[in-house]
């Protein structure tokens, strides 16, 4: 048992030494060579693309993934001016105003900015658009083929009694696609009309889950391996391509399809955090996020589309996913101002 006492002392000494190292070193331990990217759980990057950045810039890229986009922004707000990282990636339109009002970012105009498709360009120079993804309805092909019916063509159909008990959505208070879908209905039916639409959805037995995962992998019948029984779900424009790429076997056709009508666009932005430890590294990283190499990587890793004009899209996306021509959207300032009220109202209408 003597050993145990030593182990205790050893651990204590270790903790003290590490605290001391943390104190003394501060940013120095990996500061010189590391640039830290704060981002959400869905962020992903190919190994060789990451290696390319590290080789070209001389910085090591470190990732801190701390929950979904909303949580990441909130954590950054908590530490505004003294951030945990150098660049924040993943702020979308519904969070943008909150982030900007919180004074999170330093202005930076990337040298790569000229390459951005004008559809995604933004006036504010504190953030740079990096990718866009569309939240769209997904349908289970097999279900409708078996029933011999057409899948719904858009938002209007969802309230039709023929599609009763078929839709599963996410709670906009707790889920980012859930919020996007609520915003889509606001954009479509107007600030005074969406309430009535949701009353009809409720009457049509819509199912609400807390998050995307529960809705898609547990309740939606179209996802591979899902025990779900509902053939309609709120997911992404690219989800059908993911079903093919990760099927584990070659598939001619995706088991699911994305519905063009009612898609809501989310552009994801990156910004240099005020108080970043390495501003040079942060700039190099933002430039890199816009580079051809990273932009071509985003469909395969994050299932979103690049904002850089002319970036090639992998064939599986051309074949199985959709790229909505005219997605619904709302101005970020309107979202920021009214989101909380809409969510409260939605909760009363749909859940209570």
């Amino acid at each position, binding site marked *: 048992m003597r050993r145990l006492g030593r182990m205790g002392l050893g651990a204590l000494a270790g903790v003290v030494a590490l605290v001391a190292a943390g104190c003394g070193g501060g940013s120095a331990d990996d500061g010189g060579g590391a640039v830290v990217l704060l981002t959400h759980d869905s962020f992903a990057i190919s190994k060789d693309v990451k290696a390319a950045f590290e080789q070209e810039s001389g910085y090591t890229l470190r990732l801190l993934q701390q929950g979904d986009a909303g949580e990441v922004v*909130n954590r950054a*707000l908590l530490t505004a001016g003294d951030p945990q990282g150098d660049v924040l990636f993943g702020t979308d339109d519904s969070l943008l105003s909150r982030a900007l009002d919180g004074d999170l970012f330093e202005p930076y105009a990337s040298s790569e900015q000229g390459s951005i498709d004008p559809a995604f360009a933004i006036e504010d120079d504190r953030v740079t658009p990096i990718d866009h993804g569309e939240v769209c309805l997904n349908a289970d092909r097999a279900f409708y083929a078996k029933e011999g019916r057409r899948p719904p063509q858009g938002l209007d159909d969802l309230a039709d009694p023929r599609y009763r008990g078929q839709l599963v959505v996410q709670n906009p208070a707790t889920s980012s696609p859930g919020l996007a879908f609520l915003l889509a209905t606001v954009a479509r039916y107007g600030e005074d009309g969406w309430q009535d639409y949701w009353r009809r959805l409720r009457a049509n037995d819509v199912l609400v889950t807390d998050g995307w995962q529960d809705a898609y992998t547990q309740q939606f019948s179209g996802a591979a391996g899902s025990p779900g029984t509902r053939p309609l779900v709120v997911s992404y424009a690219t989800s059908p391509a993911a079903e093919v790429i990760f099927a584990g076997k070659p598939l001619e056709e995706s088991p699911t399809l994305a519905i063009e009508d009612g898609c809501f666009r989310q552009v994801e932005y990156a910004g240099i955090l005020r108080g970043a430890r390495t501003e040079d590294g942060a700039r190099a990283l933002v430039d890199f996020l816009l580079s051809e190499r990273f932009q071509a990587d985003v469909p395969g890793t994050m299932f979103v589309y690049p904002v850089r004009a002319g970036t090639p899209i992998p064939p599986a996306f051309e074949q199985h996913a959709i790229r909505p021509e005219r997605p619904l959207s709302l101005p970020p300032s309107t979202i920021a101002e009214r989101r909380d009220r809409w969510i409260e109202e939605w909760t009363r209408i749909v859940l209570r």
Partner: protein
Amino acid sequence: MSGGPGLGRGGAILLLLPVCFVGLFFVYPFVAILERGLGDGIPWETLAGAETRSLLWFTTWQALASTVLTLAAGLPLAWVVGTFRFPGRSLVRALVVVPFVLPTVVVATGFVALLPTDASRGIGPILAAHVFFNIAVVVRIVGGAWATLPRTTWQAAAVLGAGPIRRTREVTLPLLAPAISAAAALTFLFCFTSFGVVLLLGGPARATLETEIYNTAARAFDLQDAAALSIVQLVAIAIVLAVTGLLERRGGAVGQVAPEADVLRRPRRSERGRIAAVLLLTGAFLAGPLVMLAVRSLDTAGGIGLDHFRALGRETPALLVPPWQAIAWSLAFAAAATAIALAVGVATAIALARLRPSLLDAAALLPLGASAVMLGFGLLIAFDEPPLDIRDAWWLLPVAQSLVAAPFVVRIVVPALRSVDPQLREAAAVLGASRRRALREVDLPLAGRALAGAAGFAFAVALGEFGATVFVARAEHPTLPVAIFRFLGRPGAENQGTAAALAVVLALLTVAVVLVAERATGSRERMV
């Protein structure tokens, strides 16, 4: 002399380690975030509001109901493993821990798959999942205590003509009361602060204090209300711990303890039926979700096969490293966390054991009652500048895990140290041994079995820890629960299959760790 001989100088020095540790990594950040949240005053409207009252009410009654059900489901199995020697007993005791350490999200999906769709959300599934998760607490704490009840008292009662029911009521139950109360308190604590189960199985209209704090803080970013609700939660838990602490004290000191080998016996023919029934029923309940998981891990595009396990060696967009590395990182971090938890927990236990059983014992569990998201936020703002900018230090991960594991160590080791016969210590003193030497050569060896058990349990808890880990884990060093979470969050059969394969690996590792811990203790350890 039911208590120890007082703290003494050595004890005070020993307490320094846990006090500094808990002070630095728990109290300081927690106070920092409460201060930030309540800087603009205390939101009395929120505190006194009807919504808070209904939250508190639902949180409390679901936790109470879950505790009662968990006791009802766990006590029969505790009786079986605490009374009989039979082949596979160690395996049963190890298997029962698996649900306890599996990430909620994994088990929840198994549960949902078993229930009919229209009954898969709501209070029923919440209660069932709580029983599933916490049955280990009852079986191991009560079963462990059962196995050390002195047979002589029981036999004396039998000789005096007491029937089996009367013997159970008047001998067994009173002797088990401290253990039952300890198990009930822990179960209540876990269910009261339950997060994932309520979010995933409750449906969107159900909320407990913990889920509401999370939504208020992490989503709505209303730190004022979140801070107020965290205080409500902490106070409620402090009250519960104080009450059970008092009950345990009234239940009396743990009596004389017999070595397990003397107590366990082979079942009589007449008892075999009952034992088989208990094992089968509990086994079926626990196995259901786990079997679903195993089936999913083997269900590949080409039929039943090991493809998902082979995929653990391959690069994937979901992680920066091949998934198998998560296994290695998990083991490394859990080992470090266990070392820290043992150092902190044993130092606390030695100090506490020298004192009379008191509310301090209960206070050791209080950190488990703090809202994880608020503690995470607290760490961010408390350590944001030199000399304490440690927010992204890699070792914050095992430290966070050990904060969760250390209370278990304390809970397991304190009763074992207290049950050491004081006469042995006095004899050592008479023979000229210093207090420290007596501790080293009398107390700790006698509590050795509990220590090994505590180490195994701490390791398993650290292995399965998710809530704190996910916020400090670095992308290049994922742990198993974090990796499982990343795969579950992506569409496609392969991602879901990889998640299931990783969960199976986590379950198998847990069984292995617990079995090894039992072996190390000569398979006759005492509490938990």
